């Protein structure tokens, strides 16, 4: 028994166990963590097959980005308020069985075509070596043979991003409390007084809240306690 087989057995067993954990754990965060473990083991299997690039991408994209976002969402959900999974709609249960069977069949067909029927694709080991390695081969194929599919995929993703932004746009904040004027301050004044001195100050922006004024900023210096307090009498 070669070491490779041992490692394969270990990784795949771990992967399957984690996969089982995903559906078996009650706490959704635990499920997500199990999914992380499963993904890492898949990446390890990729690396064992000599597809290091795919393995690393599996970790960066799925583990590092997609699942983080999933976890991000799950963490904020109150686990007690989740719907009961096991008594879901019968239609959904039926559909899940069918879709699962189809996916399994697809994998089976792929395996049978490759091995039993010996219809190996164009990218044999020799071919990949000739291209200069796995990474180079993927790059070549992606951007030449499958360029259209590649572009369409990125377009779909862009549409998804734009949609998410539109849906997630925050509704504007509520207006801040309107302020009232005090009548009794020594140096302040009020609009409410009919003949009262009009309020004045060097502060020259309207009550805009969320915009930061740009440019150099200085303070106004005054020696006179009456400057900027009465109408007609600005800086002396």
């Amino acid at each position: 028994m070669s070491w490779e087989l041992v490692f394969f057995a270990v990784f795949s067993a771990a992967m399957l166990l984690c996969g089982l954990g995903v559906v078996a754990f009650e706490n959704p965060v635990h499920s997500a963590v199990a999914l992380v473990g499963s993904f890492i083991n898949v990446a390890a299997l990729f690396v064992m097959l000599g597809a290091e690039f795919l393995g690393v991408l599996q970790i960066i994209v799925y583990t590092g980005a997609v699942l983080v976002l999933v976890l991000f969402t799950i963490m904020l959900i109150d686990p007690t308020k989740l719907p009961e999974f096991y008594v879901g709609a019968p239609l959904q249960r039926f559909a899940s069985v069918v879709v699962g069977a189809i996916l399994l069949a697809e994998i089976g067909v792929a395996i049978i075509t490759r091995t039993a029927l010996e219809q190996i694709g164009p990218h044999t080991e020799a071919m990949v070596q000739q291209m200069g390695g796995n990474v180079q081969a993927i790059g070549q194929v992606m951007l030449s043979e499958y360029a259209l599919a590649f572009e369409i995929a990125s377009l779909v993703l862009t549409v998804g991003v734009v949609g998410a932004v539109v849906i997630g746009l925050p509704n504007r904040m509520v207006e801040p409390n309107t302020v009232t004027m005090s009548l009794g301050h020594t140096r302040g004044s009020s609009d409410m007084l009919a003949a009262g001195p009009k309020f004045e100050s060097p502060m020259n922006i309207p009550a805009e809240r969320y915009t930061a004024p740009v440019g150099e900023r200085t303070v106004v210096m005054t020696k006179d306690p009456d400057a900027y307090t009465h109408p007609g009498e600005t800086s002396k």
Partner: protein
Amino acid sequence: MEPVKTPFNVMDSTQTEYSGTLMVEDEHELASGERVMTLNMGPQHPSTHGVMRVLLKLDGETVIECDPMIGYLHRGTEKLSETKRYAQIVPWTDRLDYTAAPQNNLGYVLAVEKLLGLNAPERAQYWRVIMVELSRIASHLVWLGTHALDIGALSMSLYTFREREMIMDIFETFCGARLTTNMMEIGGFSRQLPDGLIPQIRNFLRVFPSKLKEYTDLLSANPIWLARTKGVGVITPEAAISYSLTGACLRGSGINYDVRKADPYLVYDQLDFEVPLGQFGDVFDRYLVRVEELRQAHKIVTQALNYIENDDRPMMAYESAYVMPPHMGTMTTAEDMQRHFVWVIKGFSAPVGEVYHAIEHGKGEFGIHIVSDGGSMPYRLRLRTPDYVNLGVLPHMAQGAMLADMVALIGTIDIVLGSVDR
């Protein structure tokens, strides 16, 4: 043995809002589709400048509602003062704003002097100005250091405390204490100036401008500092007046009100200084205003020291009956010894009346209202501490701010909980 039961159950979502560590699960629905999270900031939190508690309602990281809760440091200074003779209250005022004890002392002492109709000699008044302005520098330095530390500029606090240490040393030379100075006396100063005080102050005045430049170099043009302070926590002039703000919070919004100018006390009307006013009313403007106040305080101390340096007139209004007689007199003459005995045993009986006196404290208008029934103790003493009033504007500023802004907003009001809770 049964474990001790806590008075509240952390898992009980009806109670968690007011318990220490909050459970994640207790988010509740606010409006249709909107979720808020309650976050309890304090009373043990590094950025609430003491034991203040702020109850925040957050939508993500945006603050929807902010509710500051105070009283964790309440010591009943006002009530205690009713059982203390006038001269005994001065040390209690130290503990209000403990970063600026001489200023609290001065506010109280001036109020009592107003009640007694007493005027300290000119030399004492100048020395009071010097000490109070040094204390203003110290208090602003504490503010600058902690405010910058809150926003994340780690080193600022150590730089500002380095210079504050020089001021503390000056206080120590002057009166023997560093933090709670108990420096001012009713009627002036009863002791001689210690040797070496003036060179020490001169040394500080020589060093300080370059250090101040160091601070502003580090912060005023720093893009992150600008991004964190500009346009954050805007207080309009109307709001500033309506919330009855004073000090840099008011002047940052462009309202020209400085007690030293508007209602001069001591010898401020004879000194040449300017009042800085902000133009936009945001956190950055209040920063600029306070930094400029540091410069002006330096200018005032220099002027006052130049004027009074070679003066050797008495520092105490000994001609008044309300003042403890000089030590030499107590030891040599019978009249002074009697006066001294009565003063120490019974205190003086203040005239019947009611006075309010306000000074421009580092944090705003510090006012003392004394009601006297003619006894040796105040009938009622009311403290108008500036940061207590200024703190009221926090919920107004916090609406729509980010959680990270909260620390900037708490810092910009410049609160000291000893003064807020009294």
